Structure formats: C-alpha cells, structure tokens
C-alpha cells in the first residue's frame, strides 16, 4: 500500500465520511447489481458509508465507486440536474441521483437507514443502474419529435418568425424536459405495454404541435391516435408526479386528446372506442367496469397479450379491479344519469359555440 495514497484517501474521507464530526449520518445504500456477462440474475449489494448534510445520492455513489467498489456502474455527467443522465429509482421512486439529498432520502426509507437504489423501469437493462435509452429515441423518431419548419430552405437564416411571448409560454414548460426517463419508468401503461408512446414523447409531441413554425401537425397527430398512442394513457398522473422538472405532462396529454377529437372526430381509433366505452359505463352504472374496458377498447387478443401479465401481477398484489358482476350500479344512479345527460348536452353546445367562433 502506498502511504501517500492513504493520506489522500483520508482527506477525502473527512469530506464525506468522518465518524467523529458532528452532522454525519450512517447510511446503507442497497444497490441493484446486474452484469449480464456473469450474473444470471440481479442481486443487491449493501454499501454503508456516513454522509454529511448536503450530500447527494450521486456523490455517495461516486464515493462508493472510487473507494469501495469500482465495478459499480451508473451514468452521470453534469452532476447539476440538467443533462438527464442519472435517472434511477431511489427508495422506489424514479428521480435524478444528482439532485437527491441523502438526508432527505433517509426519512423516506422503508427499512430505516437503508436507501434502496435501482435502475429505471420499462427500459432494457444494460448493467447495474444503466438502462438502454434507445427505445425512447426510437419513439421520438416515430412521433416526429421535431419541428418541420414552414420556412423554405432558401430563406433559412434570413429572417425570424415572429412569435408572441404568449405562444412561447404554451411550450416553454414542455421544453424543460431533459429526457431523463423518470416519467417513462413510472408510467403504469408502459410497464404493461413497451410499445406505448411514453409520457416524455407525448410531451414533446405536444410541444411540437403547438408551435406555429411547424408544418407537420397532422402527420404527428395521425401517428399519436394510432394504437399505443395518446388514447392508451390511463390518466394515472404518475408521470407528472414524478417529473424531475415539475412539468405538467398531463396538460400536454389532455391537449393532444382535445386536439385529436377536434381535428379527427371520435371515430376510427381505439382511443375513441375507449372513450365511448367509458361514456357507456358511466351512463349505465355510474362507474367504470375497468376489467372489461381494455377488451372493449382493444379487442380480446390485444388485451390478453398485453395486459394479462400486468393483471397477474395485480392479482398477486390484490389490486385488480373487481370482475364485472361485482360492479353494482352506484346508489342514486337515476339522478346521476340525468346529470350526466345534462353534462354531455352542455359539452356539445360548448363545442358548437367554439366552432362557430
């Protein structure tokens, strides 16, 4: 052992790890490990260090990599919450390691003192905390997540488009997205159907579709209303709740749907069928017959192929919706039906009004 090296290690230790100083807390990081070259299945490794206030999860992982286990693998780049590299699940929630405080995480542990760190879900595993981002990039391509400018090529660079600050604000927040894939990992539909468009891609699609400089709104929308598109979203809000940039993703999703209904009408899509089935249930029973909704929307084959695995998991976790006969009509269904009819009338009238404008 090299004496000098020991000294250096020690000076680093005093920075992050020092039992004798005040304001340190012992933490165990329980980290998901998987190296496809040698491991047949994933496992967890425990690393215990003591961390002072203000230390992030990423700094702790860096420390572990430098001093305890150099094989621990994860991505990180900017270390400042702007590049989107370090998305991972900390105590079960997808977030950025570089902006997550260890001390705050300590208060959220399921087992006291143990912070669990796992890779993002719904993207193929590569190694330890690293997942493959290519599927997300492929979806950005499929949904034309770019501006196809109305400016002729020969005119490029000669003059600006005039864009109001108001229009800018329509997509300002959406352009905060750093493609960290935290929302992707949290999305409930993606876990069952990997082909689902993904919340981040919906957000980007929305951002492009409200930009007046773009010329392929209709092409993008046509793709969005196809299978695995915007209508598959279950409105669970998990993406929005987990967005590391606090972007109101659901507003974007709603806006795409409204746009789709307005432009294309509720006709040919599975989403529209979903919407119809939804209305039908509400009118009849005053609540959703969730268990058969996917079948009526997508047909039996799709449902079996795509949702059965999730259904099995949900049964195991006792979270399945009750089977159809158990769904009784809500109390007061008559009053409700009347209200519902009145509501739909209102919506129709509003629509007509706004169309006349």
């Amino acid at each position, binding site marked *: 052992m090299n004496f000098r090296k020991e000294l250096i290690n020690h*000076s680093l230790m005093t920075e992050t790890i020092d039992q004798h100083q005040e304001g340190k807390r012992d933490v165990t990081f329980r980290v998901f490990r998987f190296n496809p070259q040698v491991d047949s299945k994933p496992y967890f490794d425990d690393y215990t260090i003591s961390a002072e206030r203000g230390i992030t999860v990423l700094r702790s992982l860096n420390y572990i990599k430098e001093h305890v286990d150099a094989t621990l693998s994860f991505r990180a780049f900017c270390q400042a919450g702007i*590049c989107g590299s370090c998305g991972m699940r900390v105590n079960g929630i997808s977030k950025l390691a570089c902006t997550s405080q260890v001390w705050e995480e300590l208060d959220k542990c399921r087992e006291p003192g143990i912070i669990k760190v796992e890779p993002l879900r719904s993207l193929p595993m590569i190694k330890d905390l690293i997942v493959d981002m290519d599927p997300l990039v492929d979806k950005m391509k499929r949904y034309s997540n770019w501006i196809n400018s109305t400016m002729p090529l020969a005119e490029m660079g000669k003059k600006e488009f005039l864009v109001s600050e108001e229009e800018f604000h329509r997509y300002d927040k959406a352009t905060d997205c750093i493609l960290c894939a935290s929302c992707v990992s949290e999305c409930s539909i993606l876990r069952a159907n990997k082909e689902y468009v993904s919340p981040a891609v919906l957000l980007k699609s929305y951002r492009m579709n409200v930009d007046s400089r773009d010329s392929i709104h209709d092409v993008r929308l046509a793709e969005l209303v196809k299978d695995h598109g915007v209508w598959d979203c279950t409105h669970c809000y998990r993406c929005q709740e987990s967005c590391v940039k606090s972007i109101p993703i659901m507003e974007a999703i709603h806006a795409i749907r409204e746009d789709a209904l307005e432009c294309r009408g509720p006709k040919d899509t599975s989403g529209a069928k979903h919407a119809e089935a939804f209305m039908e249930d509400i009118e009849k029973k005053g609540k959703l017959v969730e268990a058969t909704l996917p079948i009526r929307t997508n047909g039996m084959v799709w449902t079996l192929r795509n949702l059965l695995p999730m259904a099995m998991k949900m049964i195991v976790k006792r979270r399945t919706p009750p089977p159809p006969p158990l769904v009784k009509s809500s109390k007061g269904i008559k009053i409700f039906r009347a209200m519902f009819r009145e509501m739909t009338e209102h919506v129709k009238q509003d629509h007509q009004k706004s169309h006349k404008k």
Partner: protein
Amino acid sequence: MKPFDIVIVGGGGAGLYAAMEAMKTNPALNIAVLSKVYPNRSHTSAAQGGANAALGNKAKDDTIEMHIFDTIKGSDYLADQDAVEVLCSEAPKIIRELENIGTPWSRLDDNTIAQRPFGGAGRPRCCYCADKTGHTILQTLYEQCLRKGVIFFNEYFALNLAVNGSRSRGLIAMNMKSGRVEAFPAKTVIFATGGYAKMYWNRSSNAAGNTGDGQAIAYRAGIPMKDMEFVQFHPTGLRKSGLLVTEGARGEGGYLINKDGERFMARYAKEKMELGPRDLVSRSIETEILEGRGFESPAGKYVHLDLRHLGADLIKSRLPQIREMSLNFEGVDPIEEPIPVRPTAHYSMGGIDTDNFGRTVMDGVYAAGECACVSVHGANRLGGNSLLDILVFGRIAGHTAAEEAGKFEPGTISEEEIRVSAEELRHRMQPSGHYERYGALREELGQTLALNAGIFRESSLLHKGIEDIAELKERFKKVRVFDSSDVFNTNLMQVLELKNMLDLAETVAVGALAREESRGSHTRIDFPVRDDEKWHKHTLATLVDGKVLPGEKPVTMGRYELQERTY
C-alpha cells in the same frame, strides 16, 4: 465497417451543427456522429445565459462592428481579428437559422427574439430562452439531426486517431455497451469534444466528462494545441462541487463576505463592489483566501455569498434556481445561511489549433467548438460568445469537411491496429502488486492545478505544478481498472479520461510558465502587466518524443490597434 466520408467526434452544439451542415452541403456523404454520452446530454445543455448576436432587436443601434470590437477587447487583443469578424458577422444568420428550425426563444413585445445585457458587451445582444438557452439549442439540434437521419454512435468512447504521416485514416473508438474496440475508417474526422476545464476537478463548473478527450487524442497524434494556458475562472462556484452559482445572485444584490465578516470587495472595486468583472472578482476572492481571510472546512477554503438580507420573498421569486442549487449541493438554504463559494474553472479558451475553416495541420482532421482554438476568444472569452462560437465554427467545419472529403482517399484501419488498442485497455485490468487509485490521482491533479496553475500563477508555483503533473503521470502507470467486464465499463472510461487530462494538464502548466506576462485570464504575480512587445502572440504546444515542444504563432490583426483593456 464501411469507410465514412466524415466522422464527427462529439454530439454537443458544435458536433451536431457540423453534422447538419455537412449533410446539407452534400447529402450523398456517409456521415457518422460519435458521442460518449447521448448527444442531448452534452455539456452545451448547461449554458444558461445565452448566445450573442447583433440582431438589433433590443438595442436598435447595435451593429456587427460593435460586437467585433467588444469581442476583440474582451480577448485582451489576443483573438485573431479575421476570425472574430467571421464569428460576429455570421452570428445574426445562425441565430435566425436556429430560430427557423424550431429553437424556442424568449420574445420581446414586438415578437422578435429577446436579448439581454451580458458582461463585456456594449449593447444588450445576448439572445436567450429563459435560463435554459444551451439546453434548448442542443435539443433543437438533436431533434433536427434525428429528423435528417444522421447516423449516431451513442456511448462510443473515442480512443485514438489512425495516422499515416501527416494524414489521418480515421478513428478508433470503444463501444461502451459491448466493450468492443471498433474502427471508423474515414476520409475526414471532425473533433467537437468540448472543453478541458474539468481537469481542475472539484474546482470546476464543468460536467464530469469535459476532460479534453479530443484535444488529447489530437495532441498525441502530433497536432499542436494553442493557447492552452488560458482557462477562465468564474468567481462563484460551490465549495464542494465547483458547480456554478450564476451571476444573478450578485446581480440581485448578494454580498461577498470573508471570515472577519467584511464585505471585502470594497478593497478591490470600491464602486462596483460585487458587480465587478468576473476575473477581478475571482482574483479578489482568491486573494482573501490566500491571505487567510477565508473560511476553512474539510472540503476546502471558501468565502460566503450572503443573500439573507434580500429576504425570503425575493430569493424565492427571483433566484429559485440558485436556492435549489445550494440546497441540493451544499445542503444550505440561502434564506437562512450564506452560501459557501470559491472561484471555479469554467471555460477553456485554448484547444486544438485550427484555421478559420476548422482545419488542423493534419490532412483530413478538423476541429470546432470549445475543443478548438481558432482563436476568437483570445485570452478571455466573453459570456454568450461560446455558444456562438460552437454554432458558427461547428457549421463551418462541417461545411469544409464535406467539401474537402472528396480530396482524400478512403482511410483503412487494420485489424492489427484495433487489436493493439484493445490490448492496451485490457492491460490496465491486469492485477498487479502495487496499484494506484484513479480517484485519488484525479483529485490531486485538480488540487495542484488550482493551487499552482489557477487564478494566480508564478514561476515557482508553476514549476511545482509541472513536477506534480509529471509525478502523477508516473503514478498513473500503476492505476488499475478493477472492473474487468466488457459491458459499460465506466471504471475504464474514467481512467482513460484521467489519462487525457494528465496529458493536457502539462500543456496548460508549460504554457502558463512560458507566458511571462498577465493577459486576460492569465495572471502572473511575477509579471503583473501585459507585455505586448514580447507576448502579443499565441503559444503552441506540440508533442514531440513524449515531451511538450513549445512554439508560437502570430496574432492576426485587423482594424483594431492594441489598447489597454479597461472597463
């Protein structure tokens, strides 16, 4: 692999613009972009402030001419005036082009692109998108490249150039996902790998990967580096991480306080106080610390940036990002406590020596962006000129390479060359008795650079720095890679990055020792004034027989005569 016409190393602003322009120049070309991170993760995303262009949207009387003058003056007259002219005249065109292809910009009342004042500029000409300009520019360029079907090799780590005498045959790189070493035979290679300021490690605002890889690869292939001694420091980096607390904090009225509770800027800039120019404030903080008036902590010495008197409301409404940063990275809420700060290495003015078309001295090798030195920034870069630089010269390099690719024979890279490269990597994973930890070396490199080749430089310090670097290079030979797996070996990647930083660090220190004057970001205590007679020239550093061979190159002058740089 099928030979490429152009291989672009780097997917930041410079690399992506080069790719777009090359495709536009000649759609038939076979072009690849290699990047060690997904392009949208590149450090260009960190630029908050904006990009300069004399659009005249905000100040109607702004002109390209004024932009040129500000840039030359800011550079302390070390920039090449013809290059600056290209930079500033292309600026309005390139910002409009970016706008035309979808970059979101904040807007003025008349719906044109918004502009704001920025340090060293005579008019408000910095075009911005809130506080995320670099991020939105990078996203737009990436989106457009996807639209055009640019071929990306994401998470490929460039290792070295294949060279025949004065001619490149292409690039050798490691596929991170598989660990395989692969050949990219190519007619032309464009380096766009970003800056090297991360060599100051914890004393740097840069991303972990800004390790000067492209420069180091070019340097080892015999291509000269230019003006490497010029590294810009930003006055307020966070103590622990070096991450940036933006100018906004001082702009809103934050105080800098030493351990005696003094607002020490009164000693250095009586009138402007905390709002003096970056280099002056950086030197002042450093002086306080060196003279023992800084705070001490295991994570280093520092001073306080105190915002408390601004009140919780103002901090929450006007400085939310800064509050979040100091909470996230120091665990300090600026509403209740002062933020610990010290100057941080922020930008590298030096880089691969190129002409105004992005060409290097080696046939078929080009460079653009922060990794190149044209030079438009000279001894000191103005805020907002770097994004502009990467866009303008990224495009020019892409265009030049596309035009010239036809001149060169397709390159070939032999199996043997690939095998040798792979062998070298494997060698580092072999167990040996005594070994060194790369983490410690990296940390020490940053410390010695900050101490001996940082804000204040002096002959004996620089000698010490050069010795330290030599010793670290020696110890590096014993660094061991513990991760022996092929799949995504970040341990290996970080060791290779350390090697690149060590090679370049030597050129920084040697250049700083040679330049016996103070100019722009380079301050010599023993030579405190600018010496135009002896040092109005660029320095070059070329690797010959394993040693830095210093050289020089004249500065291209133009309309502007040398003047004293005062603000």
